[in-house]
């Protein structure tokens, strides 16, 4: 019996140790001394297989452009791509980061460039653009360096961006027409917007299609931008009473006013985003703030004959902010991992791959007319835009500034706390804006 127990224990321990070995981080050091050798290897590189992880999955609007570009690169270089693309969500983010922790680093990664990537930057898992340019001076040379987002960890640029996003106000013009109104424009103030909402509500429509339960993110972002302006927008509150803290509180109070006046849907505290946006499709709501990706969704969901009932415009402003100051940016880009950089066979291939996937042509195709890019050349206006895409293009073209979303500059737990929990509680008066700020600051560490 003792022998049996000993054998079972030994096997268990071995299995546990094996599992432990699998989760040990990769220990490949950064081989700074091998740069020259790698350069010469690059010139005579043999075909390699690159493991590429991206969010350009089957349902992504840019999947086709991504696939076409990498297949052309494969044909031109003889290299192959092991495409491990998946739809971006919290699970995917966690999986990507877990892969790095378990030593299963990809060679090239298309991923977020904000706080989400902090652990891989802190762990030295990816190579900065600055370091790559020491050996490949033309790397990302078609981009404006000032437009390439830097990592919050060390201020260095790591990810070469493709097409970014913008946020704007989608409007059901038919509802507005029935209320005797026209869509907000580049001069509409917040007070004028509130008056419009009152008129719309009096006519029996829902002024704003938004789910405070699920996606208060856009209203949160713009109401804060209305209170801290473009220059102060990226300041995260350190206390509830500093300048940023007061602006955030004022922004939350503005949402509360909209809620108390009954401008949101009656079920905004429990509805899903799709449920509230359906009010726009059904001609029951007038306004919805959303991202650039919504343009394609509206085009897909609305008959061509009725597309003219929708437009995209600026979010009304107050304070120092002009309505033409919009939220947007380049939140994702291509990273070259330290693993690929340290591999003499893969270094040149990884650089060549990223360059091929970030040419002007590929990025302009991904931008589809209106999305922000970091390109030096201004994307031309496509010829075959429908009325909604045309409105979106004109809105972005007329923007006086494009500021990133400040919610991407706080920790995920803090973001979940203020956006998924506390914004709606402030709106219905369960907690104060100051309490919400204190909760966020505590969660943000």
């Amino acid at each position: 019996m003792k022998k049996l127990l000993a054998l079972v224990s030994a096997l268990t321990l071995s299995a546990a140790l094996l599992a432990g070995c699998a989760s040990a981080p990769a220990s490949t050091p950064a081989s700074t001394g091998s740069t020259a050798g790698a350069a010469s290897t690059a010139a005579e590189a043999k075909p390699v297989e690159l493991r590429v992880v991206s969010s350009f999955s089957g349902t992504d609007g840019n999947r086709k452009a991504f696939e076409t570009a990498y297949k052309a690169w494969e044909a031109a270089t003889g290299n192959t791509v092991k495409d491990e693309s998946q739809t971006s969500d919290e699970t995917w983010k966690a999986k990507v980061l877990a892969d790095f922790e378990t030593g299963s680093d990809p060679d090239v990664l298309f991923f977020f460039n904000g706080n989400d990537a902090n652990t891989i930057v802190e762990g030295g898992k990816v190579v900065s653009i600055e370091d790559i340019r020491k050996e490949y001076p033309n790397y990302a040379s078609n981009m404006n360096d000032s437009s390439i987002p830097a990592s919050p960890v060390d201020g260095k640029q790591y990810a070469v961006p493709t097409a970014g996003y913008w946020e704007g106000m989608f409007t059901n013009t038919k509802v507005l027409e029935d209320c005797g109104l026209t869509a907000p424009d580049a001069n509409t103030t917040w007070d004028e917007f509130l008056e419009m909402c009152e008129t719309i509500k009096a006519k029996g429509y829902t002024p704003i299609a938004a789910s405070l339960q699920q996606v208060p993110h856009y209203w949160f972002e713009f109401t804060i931008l209305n209170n801290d302006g473009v220059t102060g927008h990226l300041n995260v509150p350190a206390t509830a009473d500093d300048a940023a803290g007061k602006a955030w509180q004022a922004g939350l109070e503005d949402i509360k006013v909209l809620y108390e006046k009954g401008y949101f849907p009656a079920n905004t505290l429990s509805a899903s985003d799709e449920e509230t946006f359906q009010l726009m499709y059904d001609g029951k709501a007038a306004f919805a703030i959303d991202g650039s990706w919504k343009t394609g969704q509206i085009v897909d969901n609305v008959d061509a004959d009725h597309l003219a009932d929708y437009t995209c415009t600026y979010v009304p402003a107050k304070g120092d902010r002009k309505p033409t100051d919009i939220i947007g940016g380049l939140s994702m880009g291509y990273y070259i991992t330290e693993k690929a950089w340290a591999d003499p066979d893969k270094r040149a291939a990884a650089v060549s791959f990223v360059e091929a996937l970030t040419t002007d042509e590929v990025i302009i195709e991904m931008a589809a007319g209106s999305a922000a890019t970091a390109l030096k050349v201004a994307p031309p206006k496509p010829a075959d835009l429908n009325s909604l895409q045309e409105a979106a293009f004109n809105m972005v073209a007329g923007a006086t500034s494009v500021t990133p979303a400040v919610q991407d500059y706080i920790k995920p737990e803090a973001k979940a706390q203020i956006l998924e929990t506390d914004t709606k509680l402030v709106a219905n008066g369960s907690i104060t804006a100051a309490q919400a700020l204190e909760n966020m600051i505590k969660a943000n560490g």
Partner: protein
Amino acid sequence: MHNNSMIFKKKTPLLVFLVPAFAFMAVYLFYPFVMNIINSFSDIPSLGASSKGWLDPWYSNYQRLVTDPYMRTAFVNTMLMMLCTIVFQVGIALILAMLVDNIRRGSGFFRTVYFFPIVISATALGLMFNLLFWYDTGPINTILLQFGWDHLVNWKEDHWMFTMFTPVMWQYVGYYFVIIVTGLNNISPDVYEAAEIDGATGMQVVWRIKLPLLYNTLCTCLTLAITGALKVFDLPWTMMPKGIPLEKSWLTGTYMYKYSLGGANNIGYSSAIAIFIVILGVLLSQLANRIFKEKDY
């Protein structure tokens, strides 16, 4: 006799069958469980990330657990879910089983119909009930308006508990129904015959024969219901994600998910909630086993 004793003396075949299973359990259950305990005392910024070390104080996640008002909500809701499971799932299943047991033709049809929800994925059921309870012109609200109701009912806000619990109860009634029907079938026809000869009424047969002889079956159902209620996750998460409405509908399972894969990214706290769920499960199943102790007949 000699050969039989040799079987028990030779341990090799026993090891061949037992060790792989034990090793599998060790790697995929015991090791993660021990790691989960360690993680609950650690500062882990996101799923998959390395620990930044021990928390200061090391028990701070457990401190938070007892002071977190939403954790209290989750615990109370889980207990309510358990109570409703006992009363409605097992109760309705018992009534349906008694009724079906009394019919001579078509019992197979009812068994299939009542069991059917079990084979549908909880996510699909959640989406279906989401559509049924849809606020603006969902089927239920449309019917109510047709019958003269003067306003749309906000099911997920004004009647959130009913909206969340009803589909869960509905889904598992068939499961207990099948177990109880099987228990009824095991009662000897001789007992019914004797009762008939003695002139027992239908209700007397139910109270004096069926229910007492179903005691062990009902004990099994109640133990399964109690432990099952602790694991309910998918249907509530599909219908009422993120504590809809106003953080009122958290269950221990959904609240744990919020901090692991639900966006809040606090793996240490999520691990502490997981430990709490395990302890609660062990305590309640022990309690259930003692209260609903099976009898020998």
